[in-house]
């Protein structure tokens, strides 16, 4: 799998590159600003771009804007945005930039390299990887929602993992239950939230996120 990295801090750029290489991914370019990212994306046609939110020259939300620009230039380009903090506002903008192939994770998530690489592969395959903190805050915002309150604690766990973008298999592994049990839970959740059930993992995640964003 071919990856482009845009991260302005040398230590992190270097660390990310080595970690992904150790997991057998190919780094076609590791750049330190948004303009170079766009150039690298057009030139190398990577399977996924990993982008830090803060990049020169403004060191604000450059990375988000570069990611959105890259997706306009190369529609469907999977982008995984990394940040020291996560904001629902940015999560929304990223999700709205096309269906699927989007990730938004805290930088801390690289500490668990297996999970992180899993998220990279998921995004590259057109899936979604939303940080658990984004999901936790979305759920907290929906505490007053009667339909969500009607979910059992286990169903809420499944809902959170589903909203992060995990497949039934991944959820089953995470919660140490069978995939069949997960399927039962998701069917129940969709029933209680009055959502159209879908076999497509990605469409499912978007429906759930749209529901939570209200």
């Amino acid at each position, binding site marked *: 799998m071919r990856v482009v990295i845009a991260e302005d801090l040398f230590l992190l750029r270097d660390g990310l590159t080595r970690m992904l290489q150790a997991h057998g991914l190919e780094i076609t370019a590791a750049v330190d600003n948004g303009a170079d990212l766009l150039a690298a994306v057009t030139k190398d046609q990577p399977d996924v771009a990993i982008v830090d939110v803060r990049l020169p*020259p403004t060191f*604000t939300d450059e990375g988000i804007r570069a990611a959105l620009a890259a997706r306009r230039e190369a529609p469907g380009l999977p982008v995984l945005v990394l940040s020291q903090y996560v*904001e629902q506002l940015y999560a929304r903008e990223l999700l709205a930039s096309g269906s699927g192939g989007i990730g938004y994770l*805290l930088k801390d998530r690289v500490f668990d390299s297996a999970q992180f690489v899993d998220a990279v592969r998921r995004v590259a395959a057109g899936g979604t990887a939303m940080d658990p903190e984004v999901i936790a*805050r979305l759920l*907290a*915002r*929906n505490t007053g929602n009667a339909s969500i309150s009607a979910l059992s604690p286990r169903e809420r766990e499944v809902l959170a993992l589903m909203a992060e973008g995990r497949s039934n298999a991944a959820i089953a592994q995470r919660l140490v239950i069978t995939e069949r049990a997960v399927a039962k839970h998701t069917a129940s959740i969709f029933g209680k939230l009055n959502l159209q059930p879908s076999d497509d993992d990605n469409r499912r995640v978007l429906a759930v996120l749209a529901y939570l964003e209200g």
Partner: protein
Amino acid sequence: MSGEANPGTPDTPGVPGTELVPRAAEPSGVTGTAQTRDAWEFPWARLGDQARKGIAATGHGLAFLALALPGLVLSLLILALVLPGPGLVAYGLGQHHNAAGAALVLALPALVVSLFLASRLLLVIRGLAGLARRLSGRWCGVPIADPYLPRPGADGQKADGEKAGLGRRLAWLLTDPATWRDLLWATVNGSVGWLLAVLPAGLLALGVLGVVAPYASLDQRALAIGAAVLGLWAAPWLMRGYGYLARSMLAPTRQAELALQVRHLAQTRTEALDTGAAEIRRIERDLHDGAQARLVAMGMTLDAAGQIIDTNPEAARALLHEARDASVKALAELRALVRGIHPPVLADRGLADAVQALTLDTPLRIHLASDLHGRPAPPIESAAYFAVSELLANVTKHAEARETWIDIRHTDGMLRIGVTDNGHGGADPARGSGLRGIERRLAAFDGVLAISSPLGGPTAVTMEIPCELSLPKTSSS
């Protein structure tokens, strides 16, 4: 005087327009012919309005008379108390023999006692002047601001509520020029000013006399009635003039205004510095007890892992995991800290988007309307953001509101933010220290906060901060 703007309140005398002008046809009135010129009617309603205003103004003038006479008595008393003291002293100093000493010995205590008594009376005059200021605003359409220096010990620094000493209070009262201007007003108002106030009543009385007097000639009666009509017509004008007369003596002088402003600036600056210093102390403490402590623990855990990695790799692995978890927690704490200092979206995108991000994190139904073409200076932006954040926290905690509306706009050099909720109201700045805190933070930028929160709701908080917007940064994509 006809160039004056109409006062806003309905019970203040308006500036009468040209007489006998047909009223503008009202859009809801009779259609068609009613709007043409030949539909002119004698403006009874307007005349009635005029008469009502005249009568009200006449009554107000009589009320001012009631205020003027005690003022005159008091001012004369004060002059009688104050003037002989220094006179005696001067007399004593002017003598060249033993009588001088005796005069001084007598005069000094007399001076102190008379000053003390005078100060009590001056306070009463101050009360009368304050009443006159408020009434001038309500009745004459000439609002007058308070000119006084703040009472010693009242300006925040001495929070123990202990009263300042007698000497300081005397000095505070006697050195304030406004005190003596009040006295001047009481004297002038009590001797001649009141004539202006009661002139309409006098003319009206003349009219009544002209009608009821048994032996008056027709000419005299007509003259008297004319005088009464003139009095009624002129009453609003006269009251306005009376208000200006009062303002010339009761309003703060330019110097007093500047002194008050300097005092206000000094106080808000001190508060801003205190708030800043307290904030830095809090950050230091948070770092010290949080991230720093975790990093120290991480270092020790890593060291321990290094020591046993050969002998007990399994335990070393557990320690490494522990160190990793500690680093995650340290990062989370740093994130929370940064959010409290300067929220990332505020730095990235400015106030409107930051408030939007805030609303996304709040379990409230919020309707946000913002109209900002540019960004305020960073400190103002930050103060405004935290003010909104605090208000939303209040709404979430206390108001039980179903919906909240936030309105952010910049007009006439003023950043205006309104936060309204349909909760149960009853928010009281005096009880909630949060609102006080916001007020203090805004005051550093000459910003103000107004709150309307009747029991049963809704609660509407409006904040205004004078500022200019910088042009929006051109985005690079």
